[in-house]
């Protein structure tokens, strides 16, 4: 304790409540004074008096100071105040940050965050507590408080499986109605409509308004995302954020908003970050888009593409049928071919047989034999003379040779 004994606190705000008598000099127990006797010469402090005296002393000791330590056990209260301890290896001190100051920081630091806290040490008599009244805090490292919060929320969401890629749902190919959760100022919804009209005009677009930055953004977004589940026919949800301050994405890193996005029953596209800043909402959504226009382009098919695809299917359909009939007629032709070939080959065979037959007929022709110098002898009755007994001597016969017949007689 750094109370400077015997010196009245400066800025003595509570002087009028002090005992009117002379202040007992602290440490006045001089030599020879027995320790435990109640000194009659000075009145006892009331508890409140002592608490106030200590308060003065504590406040005077350092005034407003920066203290470096780890934030633990932070609780936020409905009124907006934060209560926590700041500690190092050996000590810890109770801290409070009233709503006025807490609001400026928006997001409480995560458990264990190393911070510089600007605070005035004081004594809270009602509780008998030594306490630091915080004014502001800064992260001690390059990693900002927001970043620490981001990482912590991310861990929580990851642990609950909300960032699991297997959770990602495919988008409907031709959405009937898209719910767009965004600010009502008209910029985002206008961008989305422009793309929708060009790509796929038939889809209904339903604006579900919510503030996307500022203190009400988290509650607004959670409410709006809840409404999406109560709308009929909606089969896709876009969460989008227009322009706005580049670093004001905090609502989309808030755990309640991430959980509300995960709870949307239809597939979701998030278009709230920037090229370089990914929000946790982006990670929880089924798909991330860089801008609201890009989200609309991902959500809706392009009519021209679909028309081209249909045209190609139409031509393949016609081609398919022609192909079928061509195959059929080719099959018929092939069948005809086979028949013709069968007939032809049979005829060819016949022709060959005929030729063989004809040539054998030729070989058998007696004229050809006679041509080689043979003759045929016939009796008068025309029978061929084959044996001697057919022609006793004196029997007339005719000898047929190649160029005529010679009349002859056996001797």
């Amino acid at each position, binding site marked *: 304790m750094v109370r400077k004994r015997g010196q009245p606190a400066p800025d003595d705000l509570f002087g009028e409540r002090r005992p009117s008598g002379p202040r007992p000099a602290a440490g006045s127990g001089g030599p020879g004074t027995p320790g435990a006797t109640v000194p009659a010469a000075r009145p006892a402090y009331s508890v409140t008096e002592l608490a106030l005296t200590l308060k003065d002393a504590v406040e005077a000791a350092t005034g407003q100071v920066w203290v470096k330590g780890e934030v633990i056990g932070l609780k936020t209260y409905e009124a907006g105040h934060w209560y926590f301890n700041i500690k190092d290896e050996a000590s810890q001190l109770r801290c409070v940050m009233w709503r006025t100051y807490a609001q400026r920081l928006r997001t409480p630091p995560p458990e264990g965050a190393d911070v510089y806290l600007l605070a005035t040490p004081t004594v809270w008599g009602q509780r008998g507590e030594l306490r630091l009244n915080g004014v502001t805090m800064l992260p001690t490292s390059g990693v900002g408080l927001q970043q620490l919060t981001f990482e912590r929320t991310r861990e929580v969401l990851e642990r609950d499986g909300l960032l699991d890629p297997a959770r990602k749902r495919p988008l409907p*190919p031709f959405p009937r109605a898209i719910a767009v959760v965004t600010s009502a100022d008209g910029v985002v919804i206008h961008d989305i409509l422009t793309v929708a009209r060009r790509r796929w005009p038939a889809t209904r677009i339903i604006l579900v308004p919510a503030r996307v930055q500022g203190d009400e953004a988290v509650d607004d977004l959670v409410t709006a995302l809840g409404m999406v589940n109560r709308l009929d026919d909606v089969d896709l949800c876009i969460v989008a954020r227009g322009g706005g301050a580049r670093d004001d994405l905090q609502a989309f890193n808030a755990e309640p908003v991430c959980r509300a996005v995960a709870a949307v029953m239809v597939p979701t596209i998030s278009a709230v970050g920037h090229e370089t800043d990914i929000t946790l909402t982006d990670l929880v959504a089924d798909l991330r888009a860089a801008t609201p226009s890009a989200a609309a382009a991902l959500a809706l098919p392009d009519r021209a593409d679909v028309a081209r695809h249909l045209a190609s299917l139409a031509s393949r359909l016609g081609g398919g049928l022609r192909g079928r009939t061509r195959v059929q007629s080719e099959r018929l032709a092939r069948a005809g071919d086979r028949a013709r070939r069968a007939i032809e080959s049979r005829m060819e065979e016949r022709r060959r047989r005929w030729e063989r037959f004809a040539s054998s007929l030729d070989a058998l022709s007696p004229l050809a034999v006679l041509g080689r110098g043979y003759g045929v002898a016939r009796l008068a009755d025309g029978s061929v003379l084959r044996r001697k007994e057919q022609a006793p001597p004196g029997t007339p016969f005719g000898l047929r040779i190649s160029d005529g017949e010679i009349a002859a007689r056996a001797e």
Partner: protein
Amino acid sequence: MTIDPLSADLKRLEEIVRLLERDDVDLDQALTLFEEGVRHLKSAKERLTEAEGRVERVLEDASGVLRLTELDD
């Protein structure tokens, strides 16, 4: 989730085209498939030219009922 009619048309149409492009469909079957394909083609083309969808804004009334109002864009 129920499949939307246009996706259904396109899916069946793609199947039919694949079947027709194969060798093992006889002429009768091919004609039946072709006619069915033409029907899906026609219905898909109609959906392609459907009228513009509405643009609405959600309002929640005091009793918590959601209502949609036309949004002028």
